[in-house]
């Protein structure tokens, strides 16, 4: 997860509105920095970062909502929807990774398990989203899934992948809908940024 950018050029004793504009501008730029990854559904990491950036933008808008025009509420709704769409996508990605882990782990033995357990120590893209203790629970040989359960997991995996595709399509459609009405510029103008 990308760290929040430190917002510079704030005036400690300036007005709330003037500073809120600087903050929201920064968070908007952060969100749109991930725009180039929107078209590839397999940019899991980048889409997750886009989601986090959208959440930061939403929280910033909510913090300073009182000093912005009333229309800020509409902007918050749109950003919240983007965030939720990407959130559902991320939940599916985590679940898919989890099931792959279970199926792969049972198939591949201790070497695979070791690689998964050591992944959280790595940084950036290599970082895995699942806690080592959870990996241990899922790969516990004494609780290994039966053939019927494995079959169920395979079926679930397929179903989740299908659901993910639909979710991605809905998100992308929404994103382009906003782009079509130049949402970014609309926000900047509405908030007088």
């Amino acid at each position: 997860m990308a760290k929040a950018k430190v917002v510079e050029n704030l005036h400690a004793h300036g007005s709330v509105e003037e500073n809120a504009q600087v903050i929201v501008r920064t968070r908007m730029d952060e969100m749109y920095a991930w725009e180039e990854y929107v078209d590839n559904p397999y940019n899991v990491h980048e889409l997750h970062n886009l989601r986090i950036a959208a959440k930061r933008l939403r929280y910033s808008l909510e913090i300073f909502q009182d000093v912005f025009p009333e229309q800020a509420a509409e902007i918050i709704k749109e950003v919240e929807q983007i965030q939720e769409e990407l959130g559902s996508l991320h939940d599916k990605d985590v679940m898919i990774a989890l099931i792959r882990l279970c199926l792969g782990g049972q198939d591949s033995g201790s070497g695979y398990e070791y690689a998964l357990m050591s992944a959280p120590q790595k940084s950036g893209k290599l970082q895995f989203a699942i806690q080592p203790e959870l990996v241990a629970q899922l790969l516990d040989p004494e609780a290994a899934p039966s053939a019927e359960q494995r079959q169920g997991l395979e079926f679930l995996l397929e179903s989740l992948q299908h659901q993910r595709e639909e979710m991605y399509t809905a998100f992308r459609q929404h994103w382009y809908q906003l782009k079509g009405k130049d949402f970014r510029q609309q926000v900047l103008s509405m908030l007088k940024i």
Partner: protein
Amino acid sequence: MYCICGCEKVGVFMQEQYPPVCAAVDIGSNTIRIVIAKCMPDHLDILAADEAMVRIGESVNTDGMISSEKRKKTLTVLRRYKALTRSYNTSHFFVIATEAIRKAQNKDAFIAEIKDAIGVPVAIIDGNIEAALMFYGVTYTVAQDAHVPNSVGVMDLGGGSTEFVLARKGHITGSTSLPIGSGWIHDRYFTADPPTAVDMDTASTFLQTFLAGIPIKRFPKLCLVTGGTANVLLHLAQKALRLSTERVTLTRDEVLRCEGLLCSLSSREIAERYQIDEKRARVLIGGVLIIHAVMDRYHIAEIQVSEHGIREGVLIAYARYGENWLEAVRQQMQSGRKISPYVPGAEEPQEDFVQFGQQRIHERAEQMFGWRNDVLAQQDNDIEPVHKMRVASRRLRALMDAYQSIGEPEAFKYAYRSVKKTADTLGNARDTDVMIATLRQQLEDIPEKGHPGILWLIDRLSCYRDQYQEELSAYIHELDERELMVALDASLAERDSQNGKS
């Protein structure tokens, strides 16, 4: 530089060569006090002051009436004070009464009795007027201090009520009057002298609950405390803890040490050892508990004790507004919560960016901690408290992200790390809860063929979640709310220049 009271500099007596000498008496629940002073709009030259412990509130708390014994004692004290005013040749003599008289059923007869005895009418003032007068009285002495911060909070701890006034840049921004005081706590909760551990627990629990519900969300760092209890507590701390007699501040630790002393010794022993009036010593612990509870509620590290109060406020108000001083103060207080009454024509001060941040950070941290007990209770496997506390921690973190460049680096770093760790710890639990909930939904959405796999996965995740709950509970339990609140306050301290632009 502005006056901390926001006072109108040209008062009714400003042009006179010799300020008038006036007297003000305050009939409180515990004590009756007088001050005689040469009165100017922003200064009092105090000539005499005295107090007598009558504890009118004791009889009012018992049966709602001022007993004949208390009435007699009060009249004796007032006659003595009347004589004192004559010896100073005062031009005006004001008598006001507060909570105990306010709620006494026989107050009308009693104030008539006082008027007959000393020839002076008694003004029974309500809690809001009391708060405003107290604010005048307490703050006029610190007005000239160049280091006074923008925000000031004043607390007048009386025997039967406690008044809070908050001010920013000399303007009162909020006030509230609570019907609890040192005598009230003593009479209601203490069954022995010294009080038992159960008495202390019950009173502390009551105060925590009561203070959690009052409308003041945040208290400024400069907390001025006045009233007899606060001053006697300072005296006790100076004697018992060997503090300098010049000191007018008390840290939370010093307040706690005094509380411990008052729980261990009887009021007679306290009175004898530390030269304190025994009646005052008896109710002191009630007041100390209130101070302790307020310091904890608002994460106040230190209080500053003022010997001035409502009496001085009456004299300052009279010097500023003349004969209609009481009506002038009443009108100001009636004009709303956010008032800027003391400098006619002045604009209400605007909240700047740092002040906005301080307020919101504090509120969000309180929201986060508001879910703590529910997370620890984990009743009926309810997953909502973890979710709510996590959302609150993330909102707090987002706010801190916004303010990072103008924060005090060290305090900010410490507070930020703590908030992040809290968010991450809760996040891990929440993510697992979401996965389990999603899988349960899948049981309804996909054909039965997939169910054995889903149920297996739910079982594995639930085992992990149960195991993680111990880690989560231990972390949340250990999370030091007070320490984090102090760090959060320090991370956006008011100052003249910042890392960004000032």
